[in-house]
């Protein structure tokens, strides 16, 4: 895990999440903006998977449990695709809110991964 990248990832997920929850509550259906923001969150998670696979080879290892880290990372990477599929099937404002909930959950999970990697509270 790279510190600044984790921060950037959390920031993007929080912004994407708040945006979609807000737009959902005001009654917007899932659109390119909210779906795209959720897709961006997923792209960053895939990059995080690659980074975390390669990092130990460069001496950057998790201070906490590697198993717990990967349980979080793999679960987090499942959320945006599930939310996007939900948004494609269920074309209501509530799907937009669900997109936001997924992104906010990813933000929390990346924060936990950050703690496990750097602060060792696993």
């Amino acid at each position, binding site marked *: 895990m790279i510190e600044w990248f984790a921060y950037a990832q959390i920031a993007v997920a929080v912004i994407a999440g708040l945006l979609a929850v807000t737009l959902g509550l005001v009654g917007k259906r899932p659109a390119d903006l909210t779906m795209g923001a959720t897709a961006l969150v997923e792209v960053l998670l895939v990059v995080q998977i690659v980074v975390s696979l390669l990092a130990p080879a460069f001496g950057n290892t998790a201070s906490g*449990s590697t198993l*717990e880290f990967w*349980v979080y990372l793999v*679960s987090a990477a499942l959320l945006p695709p599930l939310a996007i599929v939900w948004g494609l099937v269920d074309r209501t404002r*509530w799907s937009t*809110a669900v997109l936001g*909930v*997924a992104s906010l*959950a990813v933000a*929390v999970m990346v924060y936990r991964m950050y703690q496990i990697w750097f602060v060792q509270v696993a």
Partner: protein
Amino acid sequence: MTTTTPSRSTGVGRVLIAVYGLLALAATGRSVFQLLDDFDKAPVAYSLSALAAVVYIVATVALIAPGATWYRVAWVTISFELLGVLVVGLLSIFDPVLFPAKTVWSGFGAGYGYVPLVLPILGMLWLYRRRPREVAAVPAETQSTGA
């Protein structure tokens, strides 16, 4: 007279289902990790984590699945969650020795942003709003589908 159970998977109920699904995933993920990692360290806390995970999964299914039976299952599982988060929340404050490790319900769900405390209450409000209602029996050929 007959009764009808309104769908629980419409409107804001869908967000509720999504959050329940998320909590089920979170509790299951953590529980699987705890059971694999070191069960002997805190058997009570870890068994409880696993039980909570199963209950969240059943509650999620019960909110999605239609019908009166699932409606009752939803009430039972959501009540159990509220009871769990209140009892374990109190115990984890007054008897921390019993809970050396975190569970989804420790400290009233503080580790999960108090979502485990708030969610069952929202769930109960939603179930109450979507409670089965009596409808007048009407001849089959004129029965509307919009019950």
